[in-house]
């Protein structure tokens, strides 16, 4: 399944790159990086269906909750 997902994403990327009239390396690089990110995102939940969603601002939420419970005093 993982192989199939990677193959599909790679095929779409290759096909679209082939359609481009010009391929400046900066654009190609950003495009490939974003495609690699999309592929990783597609593969991770296949490998681990219970994968937790990252919460980059989770610490802030916890801190606010703690402050709220303590009535504003740390």
């Amino acid at each position, binding site marked *: 399944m993982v192989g199939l997902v990677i193959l599909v994403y790679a095929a*779409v990327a290759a096909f679209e790159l082939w359609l*481009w009239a010009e391929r400046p390396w*900066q*654009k190609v690089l*950003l495009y490939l990086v974003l*495609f690699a990110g999309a592929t990783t995102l*597609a593969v991770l939940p296949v490998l681990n269906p219970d994968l937790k969603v990252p919460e980059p601002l989770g610490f802030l939420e916890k801190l606010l909750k703690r402050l709220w419970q303590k009535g504003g005093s740390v």
Partner: protein
Amino acid sequence: MREHVPDDQGMILVLLFVVGNALVFGLGGVAGPDIWLAFLTATVMALPMILLMARVRSLMQGAALYSGLEQVFGKWPSRGLALVYALYAWRLSCFVVSDVSNFVQAIALPNTPKVVVASILALLMLWAAKEGVEVLARFAVVMSKVVFAVLLVTFILLLSVANPAEFLPVMYDGAKPVFLGAFQLLDVPFLEVVVLFWVFDCFSSKRSPFKVFVPGFLSAALILLVMTSTSLAVVGADWYSVFYFPIWTAVKRINVLTMRLEAIVGVTFAIGSFLKMAVCLLAASRCVTYAFGFSDYRFVVTPLALAVIPGSQWLITTLMEVEKSAIKTYPTSATIYQVVLPVVFWVVAEIRVAKARHQGKGG
């Protein structure tokens, strides 16, 4: 290439973006019979933020978005900010796709995997985002006629089964539920308008941002207020927060010539959601390319749209989570994206523009 959207088309785009996928969910259900008060409170609370966004845009003196941002904030801060909002817009498009795929699975296609619906939606929004904001705004104008007609017919028919006594007694539980409902509405969908800040490239005049954002937002708030309040009057305050899709349930109770009319509400949901997800993808693409110093955004639309498919399956997995995300009371991330950053943004813009004016007069 500068993309120019006339004021009236921009206003309709804002309206449909706000109404978008919000129409079928039990928005502000925590307010109970005081839902109309929650809507009014949320509108009053959101309006300063909408005015603030329009003000920042008008400070750019008619410049295209990114050159205007660089004039006002400088190159690197604006690029950093664009990257932050790219993430927000992409996440929002994942949420909308997830909402639609869960809705379709619950209502119409229970045996179809959600990823199939999400893939079709991703392809659609990919196409729309590649066409650009001008096409999206024209599409919004054309489809708004359908949406308004459907909503008007639905509203009139709902009146035949509505019970105004459901709104009584007013504020029986005090002001707390009203404010909780208002905060729910601020997060989804009122202050999601912040995404549109990154979509409009240039406006007709310095006053145009006000003419686009303010009437568009107020009309959308009015439509949502009328439709949700009428639904609550049909299904009852207690049941309104129990159903996943209260408007859908309310419309089911209309019985005209033995026809089931709820499918026509699905039409407005489909149009609004499509527009919203396309606008979010467009905003994410524009922000990413600007953050990395490119002027053309179309080449990153495909990877971002294909990232939305797994994102929509991963960030929200079940219908319960969809509902939870639609009616949660103001999480930290929303506060940062929708309130803190725009306010900081506005203060910095005012200071820098005032300084520049002062220096201009001095020199």
